């Protein structure tokens, strides 16, 4: 249980859901297991998993905030990446780990690549001087921080959905990282050449399919940031 909810006493239906389970200590291969879940209106996947915990069945999954802010509970639900805490439960639902990552157990995948990537791409402002301060901010940048950059919850759903990248890719790390590079490119205190960085990190590989936008739980369009960075690169090259 990651949070307290009142006990479900009068379900409107009993749903059957399928969870792909894997325990490296006992299983050679992942396998599907079905579970019966009492359903009430507006119940999400996370409550189904918590219901099972209450019954003593601990399907391993990560969760923390339950308010789509921490991005911990991303998993593949009916074939698409999504957050367990905001996806409404449906009868017959199939729940499996986020695709593209090594499965550690049940719905838990190895996400240690993220911290490494942050360091590799040096995703922090390279300051002109250690006492640098923001004097003024372009209002458009301000809006993008408020509506895009600070809202990315790094759930890795877009990385899982992107047909052009995978976590080990050295060519194109994927949509979330384009958003992160754009974030730094627009940070008033960053002096590093982020356009060059985007160029070297496969910004041209984005196919513009917007799979990322279609799965983003907070309704961002990280792929659009790849397009944005490309436009910025072109503008710079033609001297605009």
């Amino acid at each position, binding site marked *: 249980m990651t949070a307290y909810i009142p006990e479900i006493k009068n379900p409107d239906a009993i749903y059957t859901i399928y969870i792909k389970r894997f325990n490296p200590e006992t299983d050679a291969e992942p396998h599907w297991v079905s579970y019966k879940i009492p359903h009430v209106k507006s119940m999400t996947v996370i409550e189904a998993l918590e219901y099972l915990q209450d019954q003593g069945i601990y399907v391993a999954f990560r969760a923390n*905030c339950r308010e789509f802010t921490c991005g*911990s509970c991303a998993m593949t639900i009916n074939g698409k990446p999504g957050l367990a805490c905001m996806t409404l439960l449906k009868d017959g639902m199939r729940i499996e780990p986020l695709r593209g990552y090594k499965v550690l157990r049940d719905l838990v995948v190895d996400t240690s690549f993220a911290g490494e990537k942050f360091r590799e791409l040096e995703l922090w402002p390279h300051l002109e001087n250690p006492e640098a*301060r923001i004097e003024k901010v372009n209002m458009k940048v301000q809006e993008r921080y408020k509506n895009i950059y600070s809202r990315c919850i790094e759930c890795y759903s877009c990385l899982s959905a992107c047909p052009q990248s995978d976590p080990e890719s050295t060519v194109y790390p994927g949509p979330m990282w384009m958003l992160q590079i754009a974030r730094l490119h627009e940070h008033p205190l960053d002096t590093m050449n982020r356009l060059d960085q985007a160029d070297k990190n496969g910004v041209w590989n984005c196919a513009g399919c917007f799979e990322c936008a279609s799965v983003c739980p907070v309704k961002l369009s990280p792929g659009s940031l790849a397009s944005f960075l490309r436009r910025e690169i072109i503008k710079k090259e033609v001297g605009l």
Partner: protein
Amino acid sequence: MNYKEIKADVVIIGGGGAALSAAINVGKDLDTLILDKGQVGKSGCSPNAHGGLAVHYKDPNDGPEIHFEDTLLSGGFLNNQDLVRILVQNTSEIVPMLERYGALFDRDEHGNLLVRRFGGHRYARSVFCGDETGHEMMNGLRREVYRLGIRYIDEAFVTRLLHDENGEIAGVFFYYLPTGEFYVVKSKAVVLATADAAGLWPAASERQRGDGIYMALMAGAEIADIEFIQYHPTHAWWPPGVRGSVSEAFRGEGGWLLNSKGERFMKRYDPENMELATRDKVSVSIMMEIRAGRGAPHGGIFASVTHLPAKYVKKRLPVIYQKYKNFGIDITKEPIEVRPRPHYLCGGVVIDENAATKVPGLFAGGAVTAGVHGANRLGSNALTDIIVFGKIAGKNAGEFARSREYHSPNKNEIEEEIKRIKEIFDKPWGEDSISIGKVRRELIELMDRDVGVIRNETGLKDAIEKLNYIKHEIAPRVTLRDKSKTFNFEVKDILELPFRIELGIASATAALMRKESRGTHFREDYPHRDDENWLKNIVFFLKDGELKVETREVELKYKKPTDFPEYAKSRSPWH
């Protein structure tokens, strides 16, 4: 005994704002290690602080002195005034610092920071980034941790602080969730930067499980003010998918609170202000109705805007409307069920101005501590607290570590801890076995009913008795079903059980002792604030292995209640 041993000059326990603020400030010359029970940047409460960061005195009439007074008035003067003074005097550099780390706060077209006013603050002084302030703050802190190359281990559940033979801190013991291995980290200083313990009650998310407060107590530190659990009056309660608070705006725009008979019950408690009464009053009123058997079917109370034109609701309450819409509920057509839910425990580990605890080598900062917020925390003071005191704790832990060699952790403590966890794994499921989920639910419901919004002597005595019964009769029967070592979250829940029981007993004990009402502590049998007898903190500590409790006079060092005649005259528990 089988365990791995590693070393770090300074160990930081936690992964939220206080932990990262501490880690950043230890110093580059030292080897710092963050141990997070979840994942750094994703765990903890910080990313979910939507409101603001009280740091910017924009109004020329505002300043640290006013902020200081506001914090004391809200805290019912139980705050440690030296800590509050430090808090308000260290606000000015926070925004520029976080922005150098990579955050960006909202500004107007002239480049001036925007500020919001929160309840109880006399001026608007909280900076923000849309509705994602805490998330943006973490965006900054996390990048600085990466930049500095600070080591961290995710999903490392610290279950015990280790001493040397003289009772000084010598390291920590952790259970590594990914593999089930045991680790001992030898360290010269330890910073506790975990959350508070609001998860003992029915919190909307259970990040705050009391780890830090419990471990500090067991390690010899003092804890205080843990009778003060802050509830938010109208949290989403049912249906279960919808989460978070139903903000004051819902009532402000004309929303009604209704009981099962369809009555606007606030007329019984505050006919003048009705639904717009203060937060604490609304919480108490709702719980009174529920207790009188006039609650909604799932234990909450109805909140309704169905009497208002649908067009108006959509226009004036777009966020709440959309939030429910996403879960298939149209608030213009049906009432929703809300209920007070806990979100912050005001007390915790006792620290001094250096963020040091009683135990040499043990420092603490942020939500895990007591003293800054007194009996009631002001909105948006939490983020300020974690940045300021995280930093102080990190700095001083660094200094302490520089003056010291590694000490050897006590072998008995390590063996005891391994034995305790191994026993959980070795115990077979038997006839009288109980699963942890059931016990947890019972504990949470018990705390909410008797040690929650409304308290009285009978309920509190009953709670203490039941908690002791659970401790001695039920807890020993709790059995682990899943014996795997890899990501076993069931064992984590079982390891948290003592936190719940011991802190629950302490909280109920303090609430029983405090025969008055103040801040978040409301006793229906003593409904008034009693400054004559209760300008005191209730402090717990271990002596010869036994839990002791005592009351201590608050030191009214800079300001006292009588400096505010109107406040002093009023005997209302709330400011």
